[in-house]
């Protein structure tokens, strides 16, 4: 059930919303939250009902481990908890990749398991590892099991983030004032959700037409077509994922819950370090707090700082997917961060516009590894981009130009005010009334136009 699907927008969401506030008003906050938990589990089970047992097991295990860690502060318990979480993640996400490489290196012939990845497992695993670590460090107060389950399964952020932290979510689930129907939040949430929906169905899905065609014919593309495909993917990925994040933020707000922003105009970044402060912010925050700093951060000398940066981003790459292309992508970003740090040490500065262009160029090129399904496709794309491709064939990437206005709007929006900035200026006045009506109208038209495409980050 995609956020952009009719069954979500017209059935699941209204049903969940009205019953939640009905229970909160007529009965108790406890029942309302219980309903929200049930609805979230249903939302999760909608993809693959059996997977609901995985998330239930994960919640029970981690809540139990967290409670024990709060009391015992046992490092062995902590290691056991983290290893179990990573073990489950490894089994579902990396087992086949691991076996395939073992077979390749040793010449053995272990059968691949062909396990279907439970959706959102990378996200809820990270959230709960953070919970375990903080429990061990005594940073987690005691709270009810039901609230913990709601923190993990809360449907707006369950499938593709943002990766929320218990310290920002639990107090909100405990705040009795959040049981009240709030028109301010409802209106803002409605507006933000519609902005996210438009990003997804108007821009990202339109870009996907070129991207899918380009990447599935990478051997036939000219240099210009390859560059165009790669740029379209950079745009698609941003609008797809940031659109999803906006929708999650908007949906959460309908229930009076604020979840953190995940994007802040990343393509305006002047260097790669800034890029990672603006792109998938909650992942960067997690990697910083639970990987980079525990490894020693920047407190143990330059060489170890470089090593920590590289390891953090290498693992960040692996987190995104089981494949060498993701590993290369993570390694390239790790290297770029090291180079950026060296330049900073040398006080090397470039004009802002040049810095933005170089950063954008690097990010765009490395997205090729992120998008390519196989190593061969990535090599084809990079070959076409950097070595002139003179092959003559009848393939044409762009078959019509109906979507040209959307391409232009997308590029303008990349460098204009982002949805967080627009939402921050939101006021209930005539201007915003026109904007919201127009957004709803455009979304309705696009929703009624095509078959929904899955969000890109569902695969991670």
């Amino acid at each position, binding site marked *: 059930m995609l956020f952009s699907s009719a069954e979500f927008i017209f059935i699941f969401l209204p049903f969940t919303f009205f019953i939640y506030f009905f229970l909160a008003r007529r009965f108790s906050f406890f029942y309302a939250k219980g309903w929200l938990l049930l609805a979230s589990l249903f939302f999760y089970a909608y993809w693959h009902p059996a997977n609901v047992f995985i998330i239930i097991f994960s919640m029970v295990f981690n809540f139990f481990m967290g409670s024990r860690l709060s009391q015992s502060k046992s490092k062995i318990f902590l290691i056991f908890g983290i290893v179990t979480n990573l073990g489950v993640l490894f089994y579902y996400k990396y087992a086949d990749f691991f076996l395939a490489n073992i077979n390749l290196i040793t010449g053995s012939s272990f059968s691949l398991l062909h396990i279907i990845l439970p959706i959102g497992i990378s996200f809820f695993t990270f959230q709960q590892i953070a919970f375990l670590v903080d429990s061990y460090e005594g940073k987690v107060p005691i709270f009810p099991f039901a609230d913990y389950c709601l923190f993990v399964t809360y449907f707006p952020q369950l499938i593709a983030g943002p990766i929320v932290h218990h310290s920002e979510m639990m107090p909100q689930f405990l705040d009795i004032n959040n049981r009240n129907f709030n028109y301010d939040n409802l209106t803002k949430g409605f507006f933000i959700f519609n902005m996210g929906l438009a990003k997804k169905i108007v821009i990202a899905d339109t870009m996907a037409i070129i991207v899918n065609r380009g990447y599935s014919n990478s051997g036939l593309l000219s240099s210009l077509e390859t560059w165009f495909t790669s740029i379209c993917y950079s745009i698609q990925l941003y609008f797809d994922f940031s659109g999803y994040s906006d929708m999650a933020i908007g949906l959460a707000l309908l229930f009076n819950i604020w979840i953190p922003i995940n994007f802040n105009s990343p393509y305006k970044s002047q260097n790669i370090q800034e890029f990672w402060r603006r792109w998938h912010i909650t992942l960067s925050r997690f990697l910083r707090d639970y990987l980079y700093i525990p490894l020693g951060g920047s407190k143990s000398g330059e060489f170890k700082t470089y090593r920590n940066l590289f390891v953090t981003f290498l693992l960040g790459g692996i987190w995104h997917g089981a494949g060498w292309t993701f590993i290369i992508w993570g390694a390239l970003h790790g290297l770029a961060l090291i180079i950026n740090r060296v330049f900073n040490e040398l006080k090397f500065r470039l004009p802002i516009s040049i810095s933005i262009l170089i950063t954008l160029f690097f990010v765009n090129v490395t997205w090729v590894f992120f998008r390519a399904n196989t190593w061969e496709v990535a090599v084809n794309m990079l070959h076409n981009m950097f070595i002139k491709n003179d092959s003559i064939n009848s393939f044409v990437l762009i078959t019509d130009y109906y979507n040209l206005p959307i391409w232009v709007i997308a590029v303008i929006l990349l460098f204009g005010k982002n949805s967080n900035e627009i939402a921050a200026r939101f006021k209930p006045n005539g201007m915003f009334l026109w904007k919201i009506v127009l957004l*709803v109208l455009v979304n309705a038209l696009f929703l009624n136009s095509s078959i929904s495409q899955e969000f890109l980050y569902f695969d991670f």
Partner: protein
Amino acid sequence: MSFRLFFFRSLIGSTVSIIILICINIWIDLYGLYWRREGISIYSDERTSKYLLAHRYIPENFDGYILGPSLSANLNPKEIRELKIYNLSMLGANITEQKTVVDKAISLKSPKFVIICLHPYLTVDHGMKTNMINQQQYYGALGSVWLYKSYLLKIVRTHNLIPGKYPKNQFNDYGYNDYDDLLTTMPVEDKIREQMQRSDAINASIDSTALLEFRSLIEELVSKKVTIIAYFHPIPFPIHQKYLNPLGDYKSKMVNELNTKAIVLDFNSSKYGFFTKDFTNYIDHGHLSKKGQQFLLKEIIKESGLIKTVH
């Protein structure tokens, strides 16, 4: 303005805007789904348009249909004044797509007859080639991006703004698709010579699922007492000679499928050698020229005795 008032105004504003747009689209009724009954042509995608027209316009206005891929799509049934025939053929269509559109038309009202173009292309594969034929398009006719694209193309075609790509009278209200100028890229003789040099010019194999779908279509038509005329499309003589054996196998399998259920005409027989050897009947290695189209359609009508059968 309070947030409460703003919220309700935005809900009402959005709802009213959507309703107004829907009403405008119903009033225009580009596909005859709501009130328009006559003279509806095609302006944009042929698959979507014919699928939507098959909901009401086609079954309510026509006695018979022509079915097939592009090879039959440029037969102009409007020239047969004695019969009201709609050309439901679609460029690049296989049996799955064709059957979906026919099923939709038949679900409202059975035609008196159908004319089926038999060529290996129709049954070489199965499955939808695009997502342009699906029930969602029906709701899209109330307001969607492709509907507005169709409006735009209607303006483009009506005013002949891009004649090279969107000619003014490419389609008519009988489903005729005059694509001749769009497909003609080289002299017919050169095109046929080029095809003769290819080893894969004709793939005469029949996909097993496609055959099942074809069989199902025939049985459905028979059960509704629809007269079936099936004709083997005239293939230029040299190409037919080159693929004589596989095309012979194809023909015997299809004849076997149709058995006594249809009137079968073979335009590759020696009787029509004068036609298949005359390249002025073609625009390329298979598609017919105006001259070829007119002869073929009249011959089908004459040989099948359709006019007598219908009247």
